[in-house]
């Protein structure tokens, strides 16, 4: 079964610092990759997604992620974080399976706190 690992469980940054959150997955076939964000008290929102093509994908709010197939990684980055980026970030994977239900497998999440 596929799994997703997020290495940083809690990250604290100052405003304007750069962010990189790690995500690795275990599945040998074709995958679709996602980053979701959950702001305090709110529901999951899609930040960005990778389906195919350019491995560097740009999402909302200045976030981007790079798919490195050889490393089974999909790290999330932002050059300069803001206080409003304080949230929990989830990496998720859908393996592309014939006839599959396309369930999302989530990582454990990274709690990001941005301090003023």
């Amino acid at each position: 079964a596929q799994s997703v690992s997020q290495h940083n469980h809690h990250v604290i940054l100052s405003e304007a610092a750069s962010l990189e959150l790690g995500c690795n997955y275990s599945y040998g076939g074709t995958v679709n990759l996602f980053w979701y964000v959950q702001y305090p008290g709110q529901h999951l929102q899609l930040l960005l997604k990778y389906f195919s093509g350019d491995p560097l994908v740009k999402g909302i709010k200045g976030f981007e992620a790079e798919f490195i197939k050889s490393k089974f990684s999909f790290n999330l980055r932002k050059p300069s974080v803001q206080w409003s980026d304080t949230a929990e970030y989830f990496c998720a994977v859908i393996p592309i399976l014939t006839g599959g239900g396309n369930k999302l497998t989530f990582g454990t999440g990274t709690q990001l706190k941005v301090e003023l």
Partner: protein
Amino acid sequence: EPEVTQTPSHQVTQMGQEVILRCVPISNHLYFYWYRQILGQKVEFLVSFYNNEISEKSEIFDDQFSVERPDGSNFTLKIRSTKLEDSAMYFCASRSGGLIPEQFFGPGTRLTVL
């Protein structure tokens, strides 16, 4: 912009009681999902539903759980006899057909079993 809605936002129940969590997926979507997130843990897949039947379910989704799409718009999750460990946030999601598997999530229902 269309969105997935869920009711209630918070449900408190006694252990052993039945609960029904309701979801209204985006209207032209064909695939429906339930996930749950126990406090402090990751989001876990429960079940997927397509063409009026379960297409996949996790080991969490035992006989105490059932799903239904009773009227073509609602998508419900029923827990027949709730346990303390069922306390979690339950998220509904839906997606359109085709090759793009992007799922849209509802705001969740927080279930508290006492």
